[in-house]
């Protein structure tokens, strides 16, 4: 057990940029593959086309976020003006890192400022920081852009943990019923009875504080509701005639689950993923504020406002940039989620008629 904890808490492997990059690129590749298969299927093509027609602007803005995350996930070692810093020379830097190469100042400076905010020492690059710089002198626009990758990493990694888990147990419990269902239902009611945020904090404190353990904790607390949905839907599908027909034709349980029940749950997977994503970004912001979030997230930038807004004169650009970034992303995701739900599943989840 202790070994498991050490493995999970070990920051080495999971904190490396390559691991995060692999997750982000993997999620995007998965989305691309899913999109390819959807385009071949008439029903999905029509449904997604309808969502796109209804939410052109949201899809476009979301696309920009995804491109930024992608640009920050493609990284390699060397090149550029790396000679200045021996440590930096051995670190993989992404396209975004290279674009903002050498923009770091000494401390705070206002948007498009010419001098440091408090010291009044002239900046190395006056009027170059569109959104100013933060306490470490990092360009705020740069940090905000980098936040897109972190948000996608949190959402992607957590979904990769939570959704397969929920889908597997939901399918098995709903399809076989009996003892298996009893056990799965018991585990779900046990987890659901613990206050979400407290359970989240407890898990992170126990697993140690790293990107992976935050996602792990978010996964543990968020798979239950989707599992319950998948279980209920499977129970309904199990009773339908075509399942009985498949069984009469001699199809195995695995084949029925894979070929006849799972495809009928996929629309729920898509909707849950989108709804889950926005709740994860919100939860991460709360965790950041409590000091146990993910490094480099927008939540972290917002949390810095605790000091920055009580300074005199105040530092408003850091929190505003991150806040707007979160708000616009969540707005797009929520709008797309609503449209997806309307189009794909007006019945079981029918909100926003």
């Amino acid at each position: 057990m202790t070994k498991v904890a050490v493995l999970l808490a070990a920051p080495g492997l999971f904190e490396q940029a390559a691991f995060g990059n692999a997750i982000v690129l993997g999620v995007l590749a998965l989305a691309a593959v899913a999109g390819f298969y959807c385009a071949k299927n008439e029903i999905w093509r029509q449904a997604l086309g309808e969502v796109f027609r209804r939410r052109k602007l949201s899809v476009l803005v979301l696309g920009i976020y995804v491109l930024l995350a992608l640009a920050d996930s493609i990284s390699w070692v060397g090149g550029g003006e790396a000679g200045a810093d021996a440590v930096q020379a051995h670190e993989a830097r992404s396209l975004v890192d290279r674009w903002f190469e050498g923009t770091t100042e000494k401390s705070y400076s206002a948007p498009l400022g010419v001098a440091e905010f408090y010291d009044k020492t002239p900046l190395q690059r006056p009027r170059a920081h569109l959104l100013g710089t933060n306490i470490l002198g990092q360009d705020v626009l740069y940090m905000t852009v980098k936040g897109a990758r972190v948000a996608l990493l949190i959402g992607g990694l957590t979904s990769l943990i939570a959704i397969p888990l929920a889908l597997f147990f939901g399918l098995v419990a709903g399809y076989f019923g009996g003892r298996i269902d009893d056990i799965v239902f018991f585990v779900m009611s046990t987890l659901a009875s613990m206050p979400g945020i407290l359970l989240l904090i407890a898990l992170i404190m126990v697993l140690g504080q790293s990107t992976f353990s935050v996602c792990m904790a978010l996964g543990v607390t968020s798979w239950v509701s989707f599992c319950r949905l998948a279980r209920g839907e499977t129970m309904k599908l199990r009773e339908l005639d075509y399942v009985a027909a498949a069984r009469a034709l001699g199809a195995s349980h695995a084949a029925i689950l894979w070929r006849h029940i799972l495809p009928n749950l996929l629309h729920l997977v898509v909707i849950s993923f989108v709804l889950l994503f926005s709740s994860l970004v919100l939860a991460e912001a709360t965790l950041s504020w409590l000091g146990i979030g993910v490094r480099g997230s927008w939540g972290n930038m917002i949390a810095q406002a605790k000091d920055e807004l009580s300074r005199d004169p105040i530092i408003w650009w850091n929190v505003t940039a991150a806040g707007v970034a979160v708000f616009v992303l969540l707005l797009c995701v929520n709008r797309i989620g609503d449209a997806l739900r309307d189009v794909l599943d007006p019945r079981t989840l029918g909100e926003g008629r």
Partner: protein
Amino acid sequence: MLAYIVRRLAYGVLVVLGVLLFLFMLFFAITSPDDIARKSVGEKAPPRVIEQWKHVHGYDRPLWPGPDHMTDNLFVDHFRRMLTLDLGKSDADSVPIARRIREGAGPSLLLTVPMFALGLLLGIGVSLFVALFRESYIDRAGVLVSVLLMSIPMLLYIIFGQFLLSKVLRWFPLSGFDDDPVVVGRFLALPVLIAVASSLGSSVRFYRTVFVEEIYKDYVRTARAKGAGELHVLRDHVLRNALIPILTDVVMTIPFLFTGSLLLEAAFGIPGLGSMVVDAINANDFSTLRAMVFLGSLLFIVGQVLTDISYTIVDPRIRLE
């Protein structure tokens, strides 16, 4: 009926035991007492210091039951103490956790109860209004504003609300708490306002769905066919029937009123249970966190069992399922 109640109670007890088992795995098996000790006294502390810390905080016994220590181990001890509500002492400063919870519950409830009641009333009111104008511009605008409100993290509501309303406009005190009921109202006004604003979006959307779903049912058409006016239909038919799913949702949140609000309490300096948890995080106080998770689950499970039983008394159909 009696058989159902007994079965439901037994299942509730089973879930409590499940929660305790989960907490034991989390706080004793995955993080060993050595880990907890090291987090408190420092990573590089000599073994003697760690042993002493474990002794002082009662972690210096075997983890699992064994041949020569069937009852004197942490596993049995964890279950026995939690089930008798003996929550033990804080890992950080050795204050009894039960006393701290008694002290913190009052301020937490002072914040969460008004916030809950006001949020519920406003949510139902606004969503009824929106449902009255369903499929019109008012409805669409209402849904859009709800989504806008939902997309802002509560953190931003707190940061900007506190900054704008207390610091710039000076309408409210910045933060603090007082035992005087009149003074405390001034301190609690802003956190309550912020909580209501941040939860309004999602609650309006949820209640609106419930109302609109109810409006399209046959009995509503019958009522209209009899010549009832729109307001009369909404108030006497739709609202009454929609209250069932809304109540189910509301009852689920009541137990969590006790555990307070972490963000609000910490931001506004309210000495409730939420602040206690924030302090516990900063001090690596595992025993307080453990006790809070257990207490929250216990309240939730008790609430759920009571709701289920009262449902069967009100609506006999449920028992048959």
